[in-house]
């Protein structure tokens, strides 16, 4: 009998023109826009300079800042105080103060003390900005006699030679789209049937809990399959970014995530009485799962207690595994642990979804 229930779910999705549009437009919109938005790259840092030395040497330093691609030169100011005012007015991000006697110190082989004051409200921006700037300053100190060690350090960037931020973003987007489509739509599903009263009619039929829930899950798997395909094709077509590892693994991982989220959505739907409740509760969990998963921030930097939460966060396993496969080209053995964890979560959630659906109270 399950085919009739599945057919019904599809018909309902098809009749709801808004949901159809959402399923098609949302992944496309996300893939076209978000990689440009979700760019943590620090660039165009505005630098103001207070040059108390006013020598050719100090002007050379100012010049080299202007030429650096990370920085936008925002002019010189007579005093540190005046420059700070500029920061307060948000017209500049970093102030570089060149001390008096800068050129004399250099010629004498002494170390002039250069001050960098960065607006660190956004810590990442302030930190990265000032460290770039200090590299420039250091390089300028001894342009001829560069230290031997420094010049001998080379860096080999694996998997992402050009440090393209979009490579990092696309697996994260996959996870977000999956969660929005396969999490929120099911969360609304059973509540809507409760509000319409149709659930009562279904409850007096002999339909088994398993087939009812399964019939609700299967359409979201198929939607998930469609969405992953759209995302992968767009990533290739627009950004030229392709999967380094096996595509089958990526599909396997996303299907498991879809199973987890759609079951999770149905569970919330089972326990909620109104649409608003379902949405708010879903939103709450989703935000926590995402923030603590390492989608945007490195999980390794977390303090121990919050790192511990990643062990029960399926999103963490997913993003870890999908990055390994998609970016690093890892094989099955390198993600076996994550796959088995995801299978575990999905099964538990699936069973819970069935159990929490009550036909008889």
């Amino acid at each position, binding site marked *: 009998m399950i085919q009739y229930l599945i057919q019904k779910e599809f*018909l309902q999705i098809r009749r709801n023109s808004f949901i159809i549009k959402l399923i098609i437009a949302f992944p496309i919109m996300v893939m076209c826009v978000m990689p440009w938005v979700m760019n943590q790259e620090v660039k165009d840092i505005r630098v103001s300079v207070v040059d108390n030395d006013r020598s050719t040497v100090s002007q050379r330093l100012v010049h080299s800042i202007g030429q650096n691609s990370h920085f936008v030169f925002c002019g010189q100011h007579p005093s540190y105080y005046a420059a700070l005012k500029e920061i307060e007015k948000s017209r500049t991000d970093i102030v570089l103060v060149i001390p008096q006697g800068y050129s004399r110190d250099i010629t004498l082989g002494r170390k002039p003390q250069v001050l960098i004051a960065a607006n660190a409200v956004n810590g990442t921006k302030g930190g990265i900005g000032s460290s770039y700037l200090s590299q420039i300053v250091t390089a300028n100190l001894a342009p001829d006699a560069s230290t031997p060690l420094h010049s001998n350090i080379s860096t080999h960037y694996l998997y992402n030679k050009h440090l393209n931020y979009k490579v990092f973003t696309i697996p994260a987007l996959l996870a977000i789209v999956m969660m929005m489509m396969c999490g929120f739509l099911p969360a609304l599903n059973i509540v809507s049937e409760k509000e319409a009263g149709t659930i*009562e009619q279904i409850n*007096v039929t002999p339909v088994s809990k398993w087939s009812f829930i399964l019939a609700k899950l299967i359409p979201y798997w198929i939607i998930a399959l469609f969405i992953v395909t759209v995302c992968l094709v767009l990533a290739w077509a627009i950004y030229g970014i392709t999967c380094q590892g096996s595509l089958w693994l990526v599909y396997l991982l996303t299907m498991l995530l879809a199973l987890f989220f759609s079951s999770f959505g149905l569970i919330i739907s089972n326990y909620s009485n109104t649409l608003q409740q379902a949405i708010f509760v879903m939103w709450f969990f989703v935000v926590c799962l995402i923030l603590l998963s390492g989608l945007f921030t490195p999980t390794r930097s977390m303090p121990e207690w919050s790192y511990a939460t990643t062990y029960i966060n399926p999103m963490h396993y997913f993003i870890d595994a999908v990055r390994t496969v998609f970016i690093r080209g890892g094989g099955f053995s390198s993600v076996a642990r994550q796959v088995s964890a995801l299978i575990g979560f999905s099964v538990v959630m699936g069973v819970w979804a069935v159990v929490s659906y009550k036909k*008889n109270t």
Partner: protein
Amino acid sequence: MMNAIEVHNISKSYGKVTALDDVSFSVGRGEVFGLIGPDGAGKSSMFRILCTLLEPERGTATVDGYDTVRQMKEIRRRVGYMPGRFSLYQDLTVLENLEFFATLFGTTVAAGYDSIKAIYSQIERFHDRKAGALSGGMKQKLALSCALVHSPSVLFLDEPTTGVDPVSRKELWDMLETLKERGITIVAATPYLDEVRRCERVAFLDHGHLRGIDTPDTILDRFADIFNPPGIEHGKTTGAADENVIEVQHLVKAFGDFRAVDDISFSVKRGEIFGFLGANGAGKTTAMHILTGLNQPSGGTGTVMGYDIRTQYEQIKKRIGYMSQKFSLYEDLTVAENIRLYAGIYGMKGKEIARRTDELLQRLQFSEHKHDLVSSLPLGWKQKLAFSVSIFHEPGIVFLDEPTGGVDPATRRQFWELIYDAAARGITVFVTTHYMDEAEYCDRISIMVDGKISALGTPGELKRRFRQPDMDHVFTHLARQATRNSD
């Protein structure tokens, strides 16, 4: 004296659908005026135009001397309105709802108490219960109290008594008469004939056209084919074998201290049409939910189709059909898709479903609507369809919870023909209703009062036993003995 309401050549349409076409009438001050007609006749649109909620396309209307388009504020200050699909704030208590609406209309519960006493006194003891926890009929009573708590000069009631039991309906109309004595003009729409007869004049609307305005009797006579269809001859079911398909002993359902169903015992024979009657909140729906396996009983035993209602409810569900109070086909599926879904759930084969769907639609003369969305059908059709779907898999018993609420007499008659068809095929019918003429159609009926069954027998037996002329009087006689009014 100036008329309270003047309607001149009003027309209104929604896209291609004409709701009202050149309608004119007037209502005198202090008159009780009825607006009757089948579903989709344009009654609700007329109410909304008079309440300034809609603008007519053509024509003008005045209420209390004010123009509905230009003098909206004056009218809104003077009228009371209870829309057809009025729902209360489910998360507020009974008293909070009432107080809110009283303040809204610039009065207090104490000041308006007299005008709602007859109805509100029945639910007053549950004043701190959430409105969402009341039974269907009780909600309707609360909604009425909210609408009547102030004294407007004109009162608009759009089918105020859908789902309300006969006794309470009588009390409501007694109350409306006292309002009339205070000079309040009342315009009401209703599908109940006894209520129509209590109006001074009625206007009959049909598909947006005004077919006639006159005294109730004249209108009901002139359009007897619609309002007073001949009764149905019920060829006595031959197959009412001595086999019980429902047996219930000492059934109890308690919510906390409250016993919604309080120790009831009865049995239903195969092939019978069993009427399950009772006032609002007497416990009918609760009992039905237990029999259909939606709820567990708190005490007592029972079998349906030979299976235990406590443990074998999934077995029961395979063998019964159910049509709930809330209309519950999928509105976003077509007629054929709904049939296919439910038939499929009961394990019928695809080919058989297709064949029997065509048969069914032909019998209902509904073939051309096979691929219409259910949401686009009129209410009467939806209900006939819901019933046909609930017996499509040929169940042993079908449970019908107020299947004909808010439907005009002609459609109700067609509905009962379908019930007789089903009974003739050997399907036991278990039905609740608030229409006492329908009670007469049943083979046997039980009347529930305060969670207990206070009478059980054939309609003839009950009339003789309580020495009453018809079922309506039997019901009133029994229900007036109720001490509690709740679910």
